């Protein structure tokens, strides 16, 4: 069962430089966002592993954009931009598929963003 997403959505967006020294940024952000969901920590761990794996792919430009959004189906994470065709790599698919509920690539011209969805119940703020 999933709770309705909050009015106006709950989207967290962060941009950070591509590069190993900034990889802790999405981990901390996503850890914080994931705490707003009824999400066991092993599944948070899997999501972070999936994102870490994406961060090692060939990116386009020197800045990465991470969006985490509460949706009716759970936590949606978008990360980009990458060179299109990342998911054509069976190796990456092999890694990502067991870690999240769905993986998709959204192409936009010469760029692509990867979307990961983790089924989870949003936890509304307590009064």
């Amino acid at each position: 069962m999933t709770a309705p997403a909050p009015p106006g959505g709950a989207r967290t967006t962060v941009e950070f430089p591509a590069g190993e020294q900034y990889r802790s940024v999405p981990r901390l952000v996503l850890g914080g966002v994931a705490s707003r969901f009824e999400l066991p920590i092993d599944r948070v761990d899997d999501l972070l592993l999936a994102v870490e794996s994406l961060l090692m792919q060939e990116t386009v430009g020197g800045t990465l954009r991470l969006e985490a959004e509460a949706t009716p189906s759970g936590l949606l994470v978008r990360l980009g931009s990458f060179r299109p065709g990342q998911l054509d790599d069976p190796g990456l698919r092999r890694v990502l598929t067991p870690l999240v509920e769905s993986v998709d690539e959204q192409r936009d011209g010469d760029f692509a963003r990867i979307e990961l969805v983790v089924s989870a119940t949003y936890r509304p703020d307590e009064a």
Partner: protein
Amino acid sequence: MTPATPDVDFVALIDAYHAGDEQARDRLVERYMPLVRSLAARYAGRGEPQEDLVQVASIGLLLSIERFDTSREVQFTTYAVPTIVGEIQRHFRDRAWAVHVPRRMKELSVRLTRAVESKTAELGRAPTIAELAEATGAEEDEVVEALHSSEAYSTRSLSQPLGRDADDETMQDVLGVEDAGFGEVEDSVLVEAGLEALDERERRIVELRFFEGLTQSEIAARIGISQMHVSRLLRRALHVMRGRLEEAMKEELP
């Protein structure tokens, strides 16, 4: 305790220094520098340059000379050694805090480890961050931060190059042989080398997670260990495989 042997020369130097004779202090420093180097050497190989450790240990010696009371019936070295060692240990502690994690986070991490295990047993699944916050009395943000700082929460990308070069094969290259069964995957020389580096349990965990699709908690239940332990073993397995594959690739190079 063995009674202190009077060292007239030493006492004279200390008294002279305490009376303002800087040269007396320098002579004392010179006399005890072998002790300083010896104590610093005990902490070699822990990631700090040896010269830095000698410098830090020297501060401990200077403090000892400054504070030593000749009326005490103890050897100077009995007083100086713990002071010098204390300075070295403080250096490591301060460096660790600066580079890694504050102590309160480390303490929370320890409490979280226990809480994860007890809550998993109680709930029959891995706990959420909110449940861990409640169990430990910490704020949710603190739990996120502490989990982030702990080994169980640190992620290791499967697409890091297995070798030193960016173009080297990655773990996902190895795992991503499309539609190949586990046995077929094993046929790869590199994969075989990596998997052979694992003990039976680690190998089984990699197989269950990436080939059979079990969750960490399901693996934990099947093997009879905690989810956090599975997380640690999984990452350790990947780390070991990576090291072994790197070695194998070096051997493959002409």
